[in-house]
């Protein structure tokens, strides 16, 4: 399970006062918040104090941390082992000649990468395999992956900060409750970031969907027989 934590508070960070409660406790409808009673009372009477001092936060989900690499086979206890990146990479020197998985002799060979012309070490940190790095070489924790994405995708980052990119749940009105947002890699696989295709599931059977050979004017024609 990935924890929900405050990553940033948007461009109006100065105006938004972080809620004193634990963000997880304050999640959804602000049920655990001290002013929950007043906001529910306001909703009934239709009144609301426009300048209520405390605003809830915009909570952005963070990744767990560095990825774990699943290894082939099972250990004597029957568990399928996982290794941290540094388990291997701390004892191997980085080979900057490998820019795609295609040139690798071992490991990561099935990985399909379709992210512009980026080489592995454009994002992964050759000095510390359990972190990422910015273009200037600064190490960035995996949890803060959005900082790295935003270097190139600043337009998306700006839209994200204004709610115009990325999914969200919770409240539009931060006076009444928090808003939860997902991060870049929840939708975009960093190695192959094109948003995946989807299959349409649910379809209304309205009159525009009635097949052309069906001349029934009324959808409920059958139910008239019951009267």
């Amino acid at each position: 399970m990935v924890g929900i934590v405050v990553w940033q508070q948007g461009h109006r960070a100065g105006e938004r006062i972080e809620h004193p409660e634990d963000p997880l406790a304050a999640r959804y409808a602000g049920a655990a918040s001290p002013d929950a009673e007043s906001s529910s009372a306001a909703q009934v009477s239709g009144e609301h104090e426009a300048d209520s001092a405390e605003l809830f936060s915009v909570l952005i989900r963070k990744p767990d941390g560095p990825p774990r690499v699943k290894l082939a086979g099972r250990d004597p206890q029957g568990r399928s082992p996982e290794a941290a990146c540094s388990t291997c990479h701390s004892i191997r020197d980085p080979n900057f000649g490998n820019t795609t998985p295609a040139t690798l002799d071992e490991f990561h060979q099935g990985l399909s990468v379709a992210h512009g012309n980026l080489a592995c070490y454009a994002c992964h940190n050759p000095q510390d395999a359990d972190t990422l790095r910015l273009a200037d070489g600064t190490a960035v924790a995996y949890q803060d992956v959005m900082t790295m994405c935003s270097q190139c995708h600043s337009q998306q980052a700006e839209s994200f900060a204004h709610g115009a990119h990325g999914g969200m749940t919770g409240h539009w009105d931060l006076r009444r409750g928090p808003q939860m947002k997902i991060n870049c890699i929840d939708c975009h696989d960093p190695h192959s970031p094109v948003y995946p295709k989807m299959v349409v599931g649910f379809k209304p059977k309205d009159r525009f969907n009635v097949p052309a050979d069906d001349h029934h004017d009324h959808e409920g024609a059958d139910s008239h027989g019951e009267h």
Partner: protein
Amino acid sequence: MANTESTPQPTSKPSLPVVQNFTRRAAVKGAFATLGAGAFVAAVSPLRQAAKNTTAAEFMQQHYTELSPEQKADVIARLEAEAKEQYGADVQIADDRPIPGTKFVYAINLSVCNGNGKCVEACHKENNHDRDTNQSYIRVVEMPKGTMDMEKGSTTYTGTVPKDDKFYLPVQCQQCDEPPCVDVCPVKATWKEEDGIVVVDYNWCIGCRYCEAACPYHARRFNWKKPVVPAEEINPDQSYLSNRVRPVGVVEKCTYCLHRTRRGRLPACLEACPTGARVFGNILDKDSNIRWILENKRVYILKEELGTKPAFFYYFD
């Protein structure tokens, strides 16, 4: 004949009354009278049906805007009891009123919408729509590239989306500032509230469907039949002007999920969108997301030339 009339003989009188003077004119009269009576019975049969389904309290109910707080409480208690009786569900029907200083506006990013239809499904569930017809307030129109004329699109597409030569245009009520649907209602059963939401009093609607015809966005729906929703699927979190189960024969529409949004929450369709294409907010708040979008993105208004002034925008980035 004359002889029999002048000297009646009781013993030979038939047990059934004999129609005297049985002319053709009388026969025709009688036949038409019978037909007329039959036609009348047939004509009023819906009324008999209605009387069976309508309580006196429901019949006598005033227009929503004229109800006193006490009357509203009675009406809501009756509706909750009806939901229990007819659908076996324990529902809470609130009377959510507009938040002062709020004007709701919706925006959809057409650059990322991929037509997957999760919003359509979320609306269906959230708003207690009829399960048989998969009713929903949202239609996603698959559009050929190169036009913004929604009438050229199709809602029947299936399979994998997005298709290369298409884009996807979700259409629902645009909560117009000049709503033609409100203008044409002969009984004022639909009106625009202070926060911009166009609502329907389902108990005042007479089902004439003028509004459905007047709406250029095909956003209104008519309940051809009594909605069928299993008790365990009923969303009990309801509001009088919003997602309470609607009676048969009335018009309904998207309310921007006012039972959620007037309590500060986001609409169900927005939360369900996996692409993050949907944005909702208060346009009177100059720091709101929606305000930033209108000021910074390329924004399109659907059928703007009709002068309906929608509170619903489409944008590209």
